[in-house]
């Protein structure tokens, strides 16, 4: 499985992948890149990986091509994984696509569940906004390549000792590795992270204008939560992409999700349907969001949100 890191160490999705891998396979090995892979060997072992292949520092190259080449080289040299699990992240998808072409094996993406059935590994994929579940599997020779969505599994440590570090250089990938990162920009956010917050308040096109998003942010702040958004208002440039919830954005599973002026399109629902409780405020009684809401308020966000903010402030 592909292990990804951020400034805080292994990403939450990596820990989820490790946990999932352990439940379907007796041996789990990780592959990671970066200047200091040794620093994550302990955490990888704790979550059940026996070994970590270290691709090393990529010197600014986008990971897709070199990391896929490193995995393909291991397989070419006799490693025989049954499955390669990758996180549904920007880089994870790049690695999956490149690896697929190199190994001549297709990819199963948008995986939200893995089950062993009669000796075969079956995947689960939500379709039509999660109304139906497709089960799929690989056929033919060679490893299956799986891209797993965030929040599909709950991360749990296994208590193993540090993973053994083994060098796995990418080698020369020629022009495919020519894309280089020359600068990084972090869009500062205050408060809890969107995909970790216990409360998420999201706004949609029903807010009417970029300025009204301040209502969503204020409500999120009062509830010690994070502010999210539908794609419609991200595309419109009202809020940065890092706020987007849904199929192409973040998957959230908070205790409470408050959807304000969001219709509930299938691509939005797959990102938030896992919330324990859903509150929806929408002026259209027929909006699909009400079919998943535990509490639905048919009303105008410009009336309900200010009143709600006022009520919470005065507590």
């Amino acid at each position, binding site marked *: 499985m592909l292990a990804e890191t*951020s400034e805080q160490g292994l990403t939450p999705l990596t820990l989820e992948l490790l946990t999932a891998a352990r439940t379907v396979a007796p041996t789990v090995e990780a592959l990671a890149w970066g200047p200091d892979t040794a620093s994550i060997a302990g955490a990888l072992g704790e979550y059940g990986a026996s070994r970590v292949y270290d691709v090393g520092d990529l010197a600014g190259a*986008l990971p*897709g*091509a070199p990391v*896929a080449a490193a995995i393909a080289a291991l397989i070419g040299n006799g490693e025989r994984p049954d499955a390669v699990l990758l996180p549904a*992240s920007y880089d994870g*998808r*790049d690695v*999956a*696509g*490149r690896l*697929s*072409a190199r190994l*001549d094996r*297709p*990819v199963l*993406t948008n995986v939200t569940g893995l089950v062993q059935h009669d000796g075969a590994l*079956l995947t689960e994929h*939500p379709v*039509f906004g999660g*109304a*139906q579940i*497709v*089960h*799929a599997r*690989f056929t033919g020779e060679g490893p299956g390549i799986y891209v797993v969505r965030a929040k599909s599994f709950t991360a749990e440590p296994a208590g193993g000792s540090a993973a053994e570090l083994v060098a796995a250089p990418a080698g020369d990938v020629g*022009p*495919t*590795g*020519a*894309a*280089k*990162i020359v600068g*990084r*920009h972090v*869009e500062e956010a205050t408060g809890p992270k969107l995909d970790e917050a216990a409360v998420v308040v999201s706004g949609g096109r029903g807010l009417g204008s970029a300025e009204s998003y301040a209502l969503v942010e204020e409500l999120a702040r009062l509830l010690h939560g994070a502010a999210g958004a539908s*794609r419609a208002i991200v*595309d*419109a*440039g009202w809020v*940065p*992409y890092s706020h987007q919830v849904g199929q192409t954005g973040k998957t959230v599973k908070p*205790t409470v999700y*408050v959807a304000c002026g969001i219709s509930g399109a299938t691509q939005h629902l797959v990102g938030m*349907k896992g919330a324990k409780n859903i509150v929806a*405020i929408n002026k259209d*009684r027929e909006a699909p969001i009400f079919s*998943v809401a535990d*509490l*639905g*308020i*048919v*009303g105008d966000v410009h*009336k*309900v949100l200010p*009143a*709600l903010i*006022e*009520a*919470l402030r005065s507590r």
Partner: protein
Amino acid sequence: MRVVVCVKQVPDPAMPPSLLAETHTLDRSGKLVMDDSDSYGVEMALQLAGDVEGSDVTIVSMAPGGETSGLRTALAMGAARAILVSDEALAGSDALSTAKVLAAAIRRAEPDLVIAATESTDGYTGTLPVQVAELLGMPSVTFAKRVSTDGTTLQVERQTEAGYDDVNCPLPAVVTVTAGVVEPRYPSFKGIMAAKSKPIDVLAVSDLGIDASAVGSRGAREEIVDVTDAEAREGGEVVVDEGDGAARVVAFLEQLKVI
């Protein structure tokens, strides 16, 4: 600069989607239209081609039944020509087979730049453009939110978990764009009329030197086992706001001990 844009033609999103009972694959028997996600790629291509003198834009698509209506839309926006791969042998292709077919078709256009959407509306595997890049031996920059080029290198702002990265990449290369990067133009009346006479090259699998038994359902190496209904999430109480909406929400949050 020769720019190729991948345009997927998908079932009309206004129609409710359905799966075919026998194969569990999406029903594509109706009329197909240009995937909205690709309208951003077409617009981006036209803008970049406008920045570099002597450029033009070719559309490449794989679709059943010789479908060209989505291609005409892209041609009406301003693309010069299109290549369509349509062949009964391609029915049931997995994304890798589709990538092989598109890569072979794209190679014919000898592009400097290939643009695709980050993911399609109906398939949303989101891996096809990178598979194409690997098959063509090109670098790729996915999730581009801003792109500029002088015809030799690309400057891209690429989305990340935390914000975005500045990425430089020599051409030829593959780029995937997200929705919202540019504002797709509406085809003008003149554009629509001009599109009618623009060339569309229609190719079969054999024209591309690809073995028909290696693609389509015969070549697929993944299969759908079954489709089941997900556990339905019960809708709860829906109340009309009579000035008490906010109080209802407060009471709900109190009950959950969130406040």
